[in-house]
């Protein structure tokens, strides 16, 4: 199966590159083939995963840069299998949908998307710290270049949002890179072994808590910015406004999930002491994101930003699940990553279809009344919105429930505050639905509209089918990560529980006294 694992990364990339060489005629065809093939490969790999086993199901370890201890080590395990499958699905939908617009889907653009796909998949399957960091940095670049397409207007100022996207997120990534190098070198000093970045080797040797703290700080800089979590979200409104919608669907659905995954793959197992120390900070950041994101999503008039801020809120839930240090919370976080991505993609597609019907206008106060003119569009919109606001019976509900359950076990107050976000989600999602589709005819909406065509229906049906799968059989998305998520939170979890026993209420509040570190 290692061949399939390599093909998973190589085939979409190769298809994109051949498309670049082949020109306008063959590039779309190759892009469709590449993304479809990746989806098939991901499915084959996911079937290999044994839910009861947290070790890798498919593992490939080869030398890459031996002179600095970096290996090309990739694997599929319970933690990443579902996310890999999700990534290939989202990229496939996003790429196919891009093909509607020949102006947009140039060979270069399709190759950029392919690079993005390979980088995201690489980050998910990486079992080497440097490989992860490289892919984490790399996955941003194609989207920066795609966003640059829309960096319009005259003069220097207009490229600001794109520049902000690049610099803001790369600052975090560069800090993470330094921390990764520091982590490996310090671990090597402790163990007396040559420097290695292989995660399996690093898991075994945890650093001193004081060292862990500054390293975690750098990792947080990367993850929290990329998600984004509220005080670090300054880059995203501009980026959301400039990015072409098909690329935005992928960007909003997938890239933030890599950061969430990074918590479970890197931060929790490698830096358990520091994570336990700062658990409260993470919980508060998550709550702030949930409340603030929901409130802004409820007030803004720009549909793109409604999606963006709602993502901030949903990412807050994911962070909340992770910071519960509870297997249920962690599993909920992974599942929420899946369900959120599956909602965002059709939501962005719907937004594009709506704005096409209003002459390209993307203002909630000028839309409205489209439901009567495009009933199929409206019906599909409703389905997506119901999943979005996590109606009981949807996969999103299961995910949020698991997150809240995990958090309830450690800090009930946080779960209570977070549940306000669930209510607010209903408010902003329905407001979006009503504003865009129902109401009286908006200023920008023409008298006679047309409903969506077959291609759009097909794509939306695919996305909604995926939503239906996670709603009807959530076990499919949950079970693979059973053992793996338990394993991911285990070091931090056991540390947290032993501190709680030793330090009583103080540790529950998340501010352990310094001397507790010696109890390990």
């Amino acid at each position, binding site marked *: 199966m290692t061949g399939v694992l390599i093909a998973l990364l190589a085939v979409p990339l190769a298809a994109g590159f051949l498309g670049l060489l082949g020109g306008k005629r063959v590039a779309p065809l190759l892009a469709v083939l590449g993304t479809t093939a990746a989806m098939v490969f991901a499915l084959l790999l996911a079937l290999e995963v044994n839910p009861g086993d947290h070790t890798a199901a498919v593992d490939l370890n080869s030398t890459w840069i031996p002179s600095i201890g970096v290996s090309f080590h990739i694997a599929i395990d319970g933690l990443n299998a579902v996310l890999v499958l999700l990534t290939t699905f989202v990229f496939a939908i996003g790429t196919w949908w891009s093909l509607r617009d020949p102006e947009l889907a140039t060979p270069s653009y399709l190759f950029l998307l392919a690079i993005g796909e390979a980088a995201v998949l690489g980050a998910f399957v990486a079992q080497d710290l440097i490989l992860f960091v490289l892919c984490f940095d790399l996955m941003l670049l194609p989207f920066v270049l*795609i966003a640059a*397409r829309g*960096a319009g207007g005259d003069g220097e100022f207009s*490229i600001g949002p*794109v520049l902000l996207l690049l610099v803001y997120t790369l600052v975090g990534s560069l800090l993470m890179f330094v921390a990764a*190098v520091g982590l490996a070198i310090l671990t090597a000093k402790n163990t007396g072994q040559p420097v290695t970045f292989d995660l399996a080797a690093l898991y075994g040797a945890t650093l001193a808590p004081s060292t862990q703290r500054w390293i975690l700080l750098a990792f947080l800089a990367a993850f929290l910015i990329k998600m984004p979590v509220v005080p670090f979200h300054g880059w995203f409104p501009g980026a959301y406004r400039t990015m072409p919608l098909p690329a935005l669907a992928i960007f909003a659905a997938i890239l933030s999930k890599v950061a969430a995954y990074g918590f479970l793959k890197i931060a929790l197992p490698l830096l358990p002491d520091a994570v336990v120390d700062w658990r409260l900070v993470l919980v508060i950041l998550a709550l702030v994101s949930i409340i603030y994101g929901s409130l802004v999503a409820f007030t803004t008039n720009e549909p793109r930003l409604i999606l963006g801020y709602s993502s901030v809120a949903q990412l807050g839930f994911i962070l909340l699940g992770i910071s519960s240090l509870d297997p249920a919370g962690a599993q909920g976080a992974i599942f929420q990553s899946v369900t959120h991505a599956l909602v965002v993609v059709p939501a962005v597609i719907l937004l594009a279809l709506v704005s096409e019907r209003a002459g390209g206008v993307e203002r909630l106060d000028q839309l409205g009344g489209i439901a009567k003119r495009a009933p199929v569009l409206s019906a599909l919109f409703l389905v997506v919105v119901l999943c979005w606001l996590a109606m009981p019976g949807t996969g999103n509900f299961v995910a949020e429930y698991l997150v809240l359950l995990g958090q309830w076990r450690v800090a009930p107050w946080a779960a209570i505050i977070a549940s306000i976000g669930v209510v607010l989600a209903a408010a902003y999602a329905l407001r979006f639905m009503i504003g865009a589709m129902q109401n009286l005819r908006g200023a920008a909406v023409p008298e006679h509209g047309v409903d969506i065509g077959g291609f759009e229906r097909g794509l939306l049906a695919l996305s909604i089918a995926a939503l239906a799968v996670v709603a009807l059989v959530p076990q499919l998305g949950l079970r693979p990560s059973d053992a793996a998520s338990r394993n991911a939170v285990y070091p931090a979890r056991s540390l947290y529980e032993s501190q709680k026993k030793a330090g009583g209420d103080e540790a529950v509040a998340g501010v352990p006294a310094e001397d507790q570190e010696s109890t390990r």
Partner: protein
Amino acid sequence: MIAVVKTPTFDWEALAPIVALGGGMVVALVLGLLPGRGGRFLAVLSGVIATGIAIGAAVLLWNHGVQREAIARSVVIDRASLAAIVIASGSALTGILLAARAHGTEDAGHGETTALILASAFGMAILASANDLVTIFLGLEMLSIPLYVLCASHVDRTASLESGLKYLILGSVGSATALMGLALLYGATGSMYLPDIARTAGDSDLQGLIYPGVALLIAGFGFKLSLAPLHQWTPDVYDGAPTAVTAFMSVATKTAALVVTARLLLVGLGAEDVRDLWEPILLTLAAASIIIGNVGALGQPGMKRLMGYSSIAQAGYLVAALAVGAVGALLAYLAAYAVSTLTVFAVVSARESERPELGDDISALDGLAKERPLLAWLGTLGLFGLAGLPLTAGFFGKVAVAGALVNADKAWLAVLILIGSIISLAYYAPPVIRMWRTVGPDAEEASDEPISVTSTPSGAPNLAGGATGSAGVVAPVPTGLRWEVALIGTVAAALVLAGGLYPDPLLNLATEASAALFGVQ
């Protein structure tokens, strides 16, 4: 009566790359005299062949592990000098190809341009292999004088003439400073020969002469490397010189100057006491260059000025590695810098002939991805390589340099490099963003809405007012994409990418070259 002169022994085999460059210079000069297009073609061809032979010979010598003194004791061919010869010849090749059909060098005559580039590369090869003080100075002058002429070779542009004059005056000051340093060094140790100097330089009696000598040497080579605060000439000269010349000198001069400085300081003056003197000086200059270069490059309107400031910052990173004696890291980063820089200049040069009214102005890159996807990909790779982003050689080059600094307990400088890299994103990224944007001054609406692309019937006239750079001269006619420029840019970009995908060979080669440098003693 004929005086009997004892001629030194020449090791022609080891000298082959240097001879190829020198011979190519003569051939190009002669062939360039032939009238018409034939002369132009033959001159360029001989330049390409000469640099090709130089690179090929250097690679062969490298594979044989050659490490010997080639002209008496004054020239030493080892893997360090071969590395410098390969990079210098590669950038000479790029320079020759960029100049071949460029507007700027049209009037200067092609035989002359090619011959001067080869002459300068010849000087660089000698400088990088110099093993005694006189040869160092000979190489330095042989390198510099052709460059003064080349900078001024775009004769109908005042900026070019100014550039040449500025470089001549400041460069001569630099050369004179270095010469004084060499003289003091000779006065102190009584020897011209670097290994001899190494034996006596640590002597505490000699400090009175050695210390000022070392300081003057660093100042002299600091000019060539454009280290802050000796950098003032760089942006103006880079801006004024024809693009092909800027491309050549930004890479090749640095390469030769760095290798000779490494040889001089680490081999000749590596004694503990002397090292305590030059190490802090170099660290300070590196730190100053990183800050001044990166801050200065922000908001530069022209690509060549931007690259000028960027080269100051890059010199800072390189000298930081040199200061801690990490020649392996230095050469790895140098190679990454070289290919990235040449890629960027190939794109700038290609745009100059397509949009002559804009010249090297950053706005000439607007919408490149749509017009010339190949150039956009090349430019993106080159600029991202300079910024040290992942998947480029620059990334691992920076890793090597930062690692070496941390190993030498100079983590503060590694942090400064990190900060510098973050700042550098703010000037490397805007040209890239411009390349990829589809909505510029030409289009009105953002075209990311699938169906409704509103086209403006009166598309293009807004470019009329934007002419810059060509001071009062009638703008030359735009030409299409020159294939040789695209070709050399593609080769350089492929190397940038190869170094980012599989950096192990690069790192190993750099380590081998570094071992050779220290093995000379």
